[in-house]
Structures are given as structure tokens and as C-alpha cells.
């Protein structure tokens, strides 16, 4: 299991993956928005999306787990 965390504090703009989806390292899972910038959050390793722990428009802090990969 690998936790994918927010690298910035901001809000969730778009969720780009679905539970059960197979993703590769480098794929964009979530796009965060902060201070007028969109910042993609990418998978660091390949795997299957086990859980999505955020919702679009939700506020998140740096370090929060957004997606769990298995």
C-alpha cells in the first residue's frame, strides 16, 4: 500500500482517477489548486487505486493522504 499525499496546502480541484483503476508512476491522480495555481499530484509508483480520501472542492493541507494505492 502506498499513500499519495498532498504536496501543497490548497483545495482539491479535480480527481483524475477512480477506485479500482490501475495507474502507472507519473500518472496524475488529483489536481490541487492553491494561490491561483493548479498543481497535479502524481502517482510515485504504479498500482491499483484502493481508496480516494478526498472530494472535489475540499480543503487539504500539505501531507494529507489523498489517494491510497495498492
Amino acid at each position, binding site marked *: 500500500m502506498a499513500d499519495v499525499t498532498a*504536496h*501543497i496546502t490548497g483545495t482539491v480541484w479535480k480527481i483524475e482517477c477512480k477506485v479500482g483503476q490501475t495507474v502507472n508512476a507519473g500518472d496524475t491522480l488529483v489536481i490541487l*489548486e492553491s*494561490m*491561483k*495555481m493548479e*498543481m497535479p499530484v502524481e502517482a510515485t509508483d504504479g498500482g491499483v487505486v484502493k481508496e480516494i480520501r478526498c472530494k472535489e472542492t475540499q*480543503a487539504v493541507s500539505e501531507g494529507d493522504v489523498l489517494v491510497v494505492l495498492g
Partner: protein
Amino acid sequence: MFKKILVANRGEIARRIITVARGMGMQTVAVYSDADAELPFVKEADEAVRLGPAPAKDSYLNVAALLDAAKKTKAEAIHPGYGFISENAEFAKTMADSGIVFVGPPPEAMLRMKDKSEARRLVAAAGVPIVPGTKDTVADVATALSEAERIGYPVLCKAAGGGGGIGMAVANTPAELEKVFRACVDRARAAFSRDTVYLERYFPAPRHLEVQILGDLKGHTLHILDRECSIQRRHQKVVEEAGSPLFLDGQNTSVREQLYEAGLKAAKAFGYANAGTVEFLYSDGQVYFIEMNARLQVEHPVTELTTGVDLIGWQFRIAAGEALTLKQEDITRKGHALEFRIYAEDPVKFFPSPGPLKVFQAPTGTGVRLDAGYAEGNTVTPNYDPMIAKLIISGDSRAQAIARAKDALASFKIEGIKHNVPLHLRILESEAFVAGRIDTKFLEHHAKP
């Protein structure tokens, strides 16, 4: 002059406008979102009106709420600052229709500038040099590819109606252009509700020069000399200065004259009045018009400090119908000024870093001015752009300003967020910066940790 004005902005610029207006004897009204209720600009105004929730569309871009606030407080004029509604001709017109003076250019002039391909056509017709590019917006990929062959690669694909680097991308090859063109059209549609884009020659490492303009409503237009803003990240300025190092010690005087003349011609072509800025690229001895910004610039203080011209004061006087009493021959530069934008962001990766300002201790000293939007104890929220303050340093010479800037930045204490003071210190350590050899790729080539 107006008795009472409303400032339709936030942070450092709202604070600065309030200070100037108060100094001219006007009452001031601040407007704020829920995220900004505790910030200094809200407390420093004579009155403050809540606009709405934190998102800009519900607050600082909310035309109905702004109009209500102006009516309720009986403000006679609205100063928009920069960003938000400052370049919105519709907003300016709505205000005018309600009998409230918009402190900015005439709405017609704003409309002429807003569409960048229209703007290019207009200034080119007036004899202003423009970057080689498409005459019109580009309808499809096939047209983009044939136009790019004529212009020469690399080409820059830009959204008409864009700004601040949004919807811009570079293509080095036809294959890249196909990809970039489609992405750019999507971005233009999403961000500006129109899907028109145009192409122009991309200069890999130009300098960014600009000319400050001041014009009254009686057709009297002046230029208030140049600024250089080459040091940028993500197409946004990081360090600005007046004047450009390119022109120091009497160098490149013919380029400088060409720049001023082009700036004035462009402003007149737009029918410009009030304060505005004409932006140019400089490459290989040539200047090329990029755009005109219909507002006060973030970096206006470096002009004020070196020319003694009170730009915000003149914005109010011009909006109130007064004639410019300044003459072109009176506009001269004394000394040098540098502005460092203090961003709440990682100083290496430039990632945003909102959070609480646990410590915020401003530097002091001769020639040191800090225009800050926040005070110690405030929280920088993720809702707006990352600029929290501007450190503005002046000196008799560029070398003296650099020495003072090093001292000031070294003693600037900010804790609780990541910030770019370490980046500014690296810039000042760079031999290229000290020698004035700067271009828009400076941060990629120098000032790495």
C-alpha cells in the same frame, strides 16, 4: 477631488491606495472577503464592507456586491488596484452607469487592449514594432502549422484575452505545435470563455522592458521612463527595477529612445488615459510590443521612487478630471530602485505555501520600504495569489541599492510559511545580476541553490 473612495482590492495594494487617498484628504472604504477580515487593509480604512465568502468570484470579482458596497457607503469613485476587476471594461461601464467614477482608463480603451491580437494590429498600424506572428487569431491546426513555418520555430501559442501566463505554451516543432495548439484552445475556452488563440515568434531569452504611461482625459500623454522586469518564474515577475540596467551609464540610448517612442505611440493608439504600462520584449538590439496593461502595475513603486511622480495620486486626479501639470522634459530619473516580490512559496520549486505568519519582522534602514499585505499573526490563505509583500529598495546607484537589498533581505524574518527570501538572496549573489546581465530565463540559468 473625491470626498470618499472605495478600494476594490486586497492586501498590499489596497493598503497602499488607502494610504495615498488619505494623504489627499479622502475618506476610504475597504471591501473584503471572509478570508481577509483580519488583514491590515481592512482595519486601516475608514470603513470596511464585507463582500462575501473567500472565493474571488464571490467577493473581489462580485460586481453586484462591489456596486452595493459603493452605493451603501456613498463612495464617489472606485480604485481597482491590479488584478481582479481592474481590467474589466464591463465593470468600469457598470460603475459609470451608476454614477461612480472608475479610477482607470476609459472603458473603450480597455476593450481595445483586452484582445491581444486586436491590440497588436492596432499598435502595428501606429508604427509600433511587434513580435512577428499571426495577424489574426488562428482557426485550426492546419493554419497554425502553415503560419508557424512562415514565422519560424520556436513559436509561442497564446490565448487571445489571456494574461499572467495563463494559456501560453511553446512549440519547437510541428509535432509539438499540434499538441500545444489543442491544449491552448481548451485553456482559452476554460479560462476566458473564448477559444481563440494566436501564434508568435518565441524568443528563448529576451529581456522584459516596459514603459510607464500617464495620460489625462484631455489628450495629454506622457511616459514616465522605463522599468525592467526580466526576472520571472512561470511568466510572473519576481524582481523589477527602474531603470533598466540595459540603459545604465548612458548605454543603448538609441534603444531607449525607440522604447519610449513606441510606448507613447501604443498608448495613443489605444486612446489611453490614466496610468498604464506598455510591455516590450528586447532581443538582439530590438524592442517588440507585447501588450499594454490598463492599470497600475504591481511594480509601480520603483518608478515613483526614482522619478518622484506619485502615480496613484495622479490616477485619482486624472479620474477626477484634472489635467496633467507634469511636462515630459520634467520627467527625469534620480538614483535606482529594486523591487523584490515576497511570495508565500517554496524558494526552489516555487510551490505555493499558504499558512500562518507566526513571525513577520520587516527590515528597516535607509532606502528600505516594505509594502506588505499582512502582519505578524495573520494567516496567508490559499484563496489568492501568493504575493504577501513587496520589498522596495532605493539607492543613489544600482550598486548601492543592491548592497542595501542584501542587508534588508538578510534581516527579513518570516516564519510559519515557506517564502522566497532565500531566492532573492541567491539572485543578489549572482555575478550576472550584479553586472545587469539578466533575461527572462535568468532563474533557470542562475540563482539555483
